[in-house]
């Protein structure tokens, strides 16, 4: 079993003065764009696209995503950036994770964009889906209610748009209407690029399992990730589908690989800006947003404040490493952490490294990627199968501890 490493950069903008961020109700959706200097943005685009080119040369796959109207992410349109990456690179896989289909009014346009990128890249595209929510619903003016149903209908329509070769076909769904679907070009990969989705919601993981989509978790830690993958596997067993390979499982963590453990942890600590600063959000965009919590959960969420900002005490690099949310240290240490993670979640092929995040610089990011390709990735090839008995034992121990 060989693992793959992926570079995920959200292209954050950590250049707004602190006093502005402190006074703002939210650093997403409502922070005026006068605080975004296009000269700085242009430099950031150059730097991150150069990092992608480096990754293409050294065998690290690339992930793009999108968020809107905030300091956390300058990729406002994942398909646009993915199209640029498709032409800049020649070798590696490219995952769009993803455009926000619950905000996009027409999934057929999304299918066209992805088919175009797949052809541009000669079949190197992977298509990812995220449910979205919170400030994204505000900046995209999309109803935050029923987004899960809307997401699945969008995925179904995108899939049918990609695989139908004798159209036009008609779609008159609950959320989307398109009476004449017939996209050109059709995708390069047949019948379509692989689908991924980011979720830790167990019923959703089960549905991914039945559909055979790649299930990726974001910073879920050991137990939540293992439970999610278990839900995926169980759903396949119950549906009498073949057991999934490890290539159906993916995990995103903060990651920094230094020359030494000290350097890895010191620079890794700079990534935590993502959690301490970039997700500050006003209550109407978070706990009070319709659909954010089930009504019966509202009293607990509202009384406690339910801020999505974690306490800074939980954000020390050592703590994040212990929770399985960060891989940091020298190359051997990170290799050991990733192998341990794979063992504890019951097998996984894809590790998505969030490295150029927060206050990590371009030069620092490139050094970590080079070390990942040279000293970590080779150690993650030809791995023995994960021990099924050991996974079962770990699951029982975790259940007993609760």
């Amino acid at each position, binding site marked *: 079993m060989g693992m793959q490493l992926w570079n995920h950069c959200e292209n954050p903008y950590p250049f707004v003065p602190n006093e502005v961020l402190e006074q703002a109700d939210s650093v997403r959706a409502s922070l005026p764009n006068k605080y975004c200097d296009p000269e700085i943005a242009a430099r950031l685009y150059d730097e991150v696209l150069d990092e992608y080119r480096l990754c293409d040369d050294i065998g690290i796959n690339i992930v793009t995503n999108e968020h809107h109207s905030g300091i956390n992410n300058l990729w406002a349109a994942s398909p646009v950036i993915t199209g640029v990456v498709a032409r800049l690179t020649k070798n590696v896989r490219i995952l769009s994770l993803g455009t926000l289909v619950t905000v996009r009014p027409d999934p057929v346009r999304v299918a066209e964009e992805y088919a175009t990128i797949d052809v541009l890249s000669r079949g190197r595209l992977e298509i990812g889906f995220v449910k979205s929510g919170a400030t994204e619903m505000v900046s995209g003016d999309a109803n*935050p209610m029923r987004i899960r149903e809307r997401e699945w209908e969008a995925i179904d329509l995108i899939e049918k748009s990609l695989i139908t070769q004798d159209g036009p076909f008609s779609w008159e769904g609950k959320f989307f209407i398109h009476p004449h679907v017939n996209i050109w070009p059709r995708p390069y990969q047949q019948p379509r690029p692989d689908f991924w989705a980011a979720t830790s919601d167990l019923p959703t993981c089960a549905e991914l399992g039945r559909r055979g989509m790649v299930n990726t978790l974001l910073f879920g830690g050991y137990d939540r990730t293992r439970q999610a993958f278990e839900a995926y596997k169980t759903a396949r067993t119950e549906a009498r589908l073949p057991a999934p390979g490890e290539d159906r499982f993916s995990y995103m963590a903060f990651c920094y690989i230094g020359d030494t453990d000290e350097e890895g942890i010191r620079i890794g600590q700079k990534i935590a800006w993502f959690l301490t600063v970039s997700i500050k959000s006003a209550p109407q965009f978070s706990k009070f947003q319709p*659909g954010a919590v089930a*009504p019966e959960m509202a009293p607990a969420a509202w009384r406690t404040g339910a801020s999505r900002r974690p306490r800074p005490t939980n954000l020390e690099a050592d703590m994040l490493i212990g929770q399985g949310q960060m891989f940091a240290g020298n190359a051997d240490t990170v290799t050991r952490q990733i192998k341990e993670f794979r063992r504890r979640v019951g097998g996984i092929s894809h590790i998505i490294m969030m490295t150029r995040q927060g206050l990590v610089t371009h030069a620092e990011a490139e050094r970590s990627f080079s070390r990942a390709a040279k000293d970590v990735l080779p150690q993650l090839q030809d791995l023995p199968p994960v021990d099924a008995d050991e996974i079962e034992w770990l699951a029982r121990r975790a259940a007993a501890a609760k």
Partner: protein
Amino acid sequence: MSGAAERLSVGPFELEVLRRKAKRPGAPLLLLIHGINNINNEAPFLDLLAEYGEIVAPSHPGFGASLRPPDFDTMYDLVHLYLGVVDALPAERIAMVGFSFGGWIAAEVAAAGHRKLDRLVLVDPVGVKLGGREERDIAHLFNTLPAELDRRAWHDPAKGPTGSYGVGWHSRIGDAMSDEEMVTLARNWDSLCLYAWRPHLYNPQLKNWLHRIAVPSLVLWGASDRIVTPDYGRAYAGLIPGARFVAIEEAGHHPELEQPRAFVERVAAFLDRSGPSP
């Protein structure tokens, strides 16, 4: 917010209904159509208003204890439901009183018309787009800071009544609010969002059809309302043939909660002036 146990069946739908018997014989039936939250059974204006009519106040699907069926999620559904409510009520003459979001429903129902409808009262209603494309007529309830909504919704937020929750209710979350109330508020908020996220609290076509309203109409407005301003209210009333606009002083978006006596006096005078029900 609860306290009403009665139910009303309308076709396949069953609604929770709050009722007050009329305190004098021959009084008209008042169908109250609630705003962003179902009407609190303890709200002082109810007993005052019952002096002048029999009160029937259903909770919309997804509000209070009324279930929201699958696929019931548009103003179109609500308008047809309330036409069905008017059908289902035994009275032959009905005065409809719509508050805020419920004022929008009432205006839609009145524009559609019903033979049993004989009076219309709109209280700080939303539902029409009057200003230019870069002017916001109605504060965005879901995108605005709750504290700001609270400031705009009341003449005096500090005197907002306990137990009845209007716009800006999020700012009143505290020990005095029970878990049960919070669950209801959350259901109401989710349901309002389904019906009203986009366009936010209006039907772009409704202003073309308000001229069809053929019953005596009163448009009441809290003089201090900054969720939808009195100027919007005057223009709204101007689109309804013969409608009278009356401002209630020292009240914001919910004059029935903030100035219950003045509110009931205005409604009573209107019911009286526009003649007894035949």
